[in-house]
């Protein structure tokens, strides 16, 4: 588990940024630093991305480095793989996670395998960024949160930031990482709050969870957009239950040590995610914990998740998403076992 403070660069120069601005800032910094870094995707150029995550980059770095592509996701990821195989560092944007499925073959059959297939002589230092998750009242297919798909594919890394500071630092690490990273951006909180973000470059290392709130009664594991309602639930329970909140930040490789350490301390646990229950990462975390710490376990680990239904159109989405009330109840259930 890392202490963010350790990686802090010059702490005097900071900007007050939203999470999506931190994405842009991270992209900008790495593009300045390394000519091999290019950004590509639909509407990333003149339009600056449908969420403005690439705003102004095209003007600054030119069309050759901020590449508006045709509307073809497999083509985007497939050509990015080709670019990365000869040493470039493409950052491909998939406009919404719901449109990433056509890239699945390129991701699992190639990005994840080229290093193995070539015994390290060809690698894929590629980042695929995509906004994920529900709650913004959009049309169908714009609310998916299927991180579990990527985590089940060896060879991929999966990262989900939950704060502007982490966003820039994790994105920097992802771009510099020698392996393919799926970078899932919690669009629900793209503009939800601001944080001081260092102007300099810095890395938040991949593979390290962060304890967002210390507590002694129960460990709640979550990531991305669910971190906020989970912290809110923890606040609501203040005085009644002392909740520890662990933000996993990297979902693959998992920071098993941090997870187990927190659980051993509290002996009770819950996992909060937006994705459907069945086959979601709640299962993986639960299994990992009971493998490593069954003797500490005082209650079943609660899975507080989306339902096993397609994500509904927005009239019903607030019923779908875990929110503080549901999380609070879940935590109480784990306590009252």
């Amino acid at each position, binding site marked *: 588990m890392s202490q963010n403070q350790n990686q802090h660069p010059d702490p005097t120069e900071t900007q007050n940024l939203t999470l999506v601005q931190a994405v842009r800032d991270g992209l900008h910094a790495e593009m300045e630093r390394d000519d091999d870094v290019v950004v590509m995707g639909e509407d990333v150029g003149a339009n600056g991305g449908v969420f403005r995550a690439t705003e102004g980059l095209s003007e600054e770095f030119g069309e050759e480095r901020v590449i508006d592509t*045709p*509307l073809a996701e497999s083509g985007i990821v497939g050509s990015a793989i080709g670019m990365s195989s000869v040493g470039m560092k493409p950052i491909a944007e998939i406009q919404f996670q719901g449109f990433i499925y056509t890239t699945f073959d390129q991701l699992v059959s190639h990005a994840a395998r080229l290093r193995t297939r070539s015994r390290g002589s060809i690698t894929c230092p590629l980042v695929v960024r995509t906004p994920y998750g529900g709650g913004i009242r959009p049309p169908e297919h714009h609310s998916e949160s299927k991180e579990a798909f990527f985590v089940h594919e060896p060879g991929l890394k999966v990262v989900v930031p939950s704060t502007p500071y982490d966003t820039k630092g994790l994105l920097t690490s992802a771009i510099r990482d020698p392996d393919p990273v799926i970078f899932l951006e919690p669009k629900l909180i793209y503009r939800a709050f601001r944080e001081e973000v260092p102007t300099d470059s810095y890395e938040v290392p991949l593979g390290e969870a962060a304890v967002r709130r210390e507590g002694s009664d129960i460990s709640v594991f979550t990531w991305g957009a669910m971190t906020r309602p989970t912290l809110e639930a923890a606040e609501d329970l203040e005085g009644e239950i002392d909740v520890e909140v662990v933000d996993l930040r990297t979902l693959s490789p998992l920071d098993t040590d941090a997870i187990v350490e927190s659980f051993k301390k509290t002996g009770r646990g819950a996992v909060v995610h937006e994705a459907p229950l069945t086959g979601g990462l709640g299962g993986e975390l639960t299994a990992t914990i009971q493998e490593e710490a069954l003797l500490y376990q005082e209650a079943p680990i609660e899975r507080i998740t989306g*339902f*096993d239904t397609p994500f509904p159109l927005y009239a*019903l989405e*607030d*019923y779908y998403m875990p929110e*503080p009330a549901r999380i609070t109840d879940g935590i109480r259930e784990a306590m009252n076992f």
Partner: protein
Amino acid sequence: MRLSTESVTSSKDEPFRILDANGRLIEGRTGPDLSDEQLVQMYEDMTFSRHFDERTVSLQRQGRMGTYAPVAGHEGAQIGSTYALDRDDWVLPTYRESAIPLARDVEPSEVLRYWKGYEEGNASLVAENVFPINIVIGSLIPHATGMGMAFKYRDDYSRAVVCHFGDGATSEGDFHEALNFAGVFDTPNVFFCNNNQWAISVPRDRQTASDTIAQKAIAYGFDGVRVDGMDPLAVYRVTRDAIENAKRPEDDRKRPTLVESVQYRFGAHTTADDPSVYRDDDELERWQRKDPIVRFEKFLRNTGRLDDERIDAVKTRNEERMADAIEAVERLDDPDPEEMFQNVYEELPSRLEEQFERLQELRDRHGDDELLEG
């Protein structure tokens, strides 16, 4: 009538059109085989669509409607092509084709309902042989081919399947796979590309290096046609030809056709988009001068089918119809979360049943207000 060959092989030629900019029949072109009544109804549908669009965009601005993809500029293409359908034909629209269900007599309140985030609005299309909308660009095209394969398999020569998509969609692998299947299985399909010059901010010439979209049909062994999408009569004619050929193919012609309808979207991509960031006003104005409604209105006036009085009557009817639709959709009951669990499968699995029960307990405990505030 073979429009196809002429337009495809001379790819840089002007698209096929019947009306000139002033709504007059172009020399050598014959008028439409539609009754006066049908032509006026077509006009009413086009103007209603424009009105529906304006009102829905403004509802969205007021927070009374979800993200919406405006039709304006596409009325000629959508309504011209929909009038060419026979009753049993199927049509697969995208999110930008609200005028299609409207022209097929789906209640405007149902179309609004979809944009208000209710699946029920989408469901209501099916009764009129309009396929429910989805938003994954290009992915509906194989469904259209599959439907065509089914009708062919059943020796049902009474049905064609018309599938709409944008210029952007032609870059997707599914476009290619679907058209290739259609060529191989020689299915009763019309692939209707609404080439409106932009895919959000990406211009047509960044989408593909081919001179035209129509010429892509060469890769699949069937005909491609270019038509002026701002001319509803030309669109009607070309689509009608393609539909008839799909059902009773000419000897030397395959049943599918790729139609490239050359047009423009006047508004934003969706209510979440700001086109001023990426495109010129000049371009917009150039295309606005070709407004399909203005042009068609001139034609109907020129030919004595329409006058000020009738136009006023149409306008009044449109406004009333839309006002009713808005009222209806705003009167809707709050949605029942049970809907979310129904229709995942025909039968509710026990896991889902339990999850639904847990949600009901949660609602009982906290009340919907607390639950939904997030």
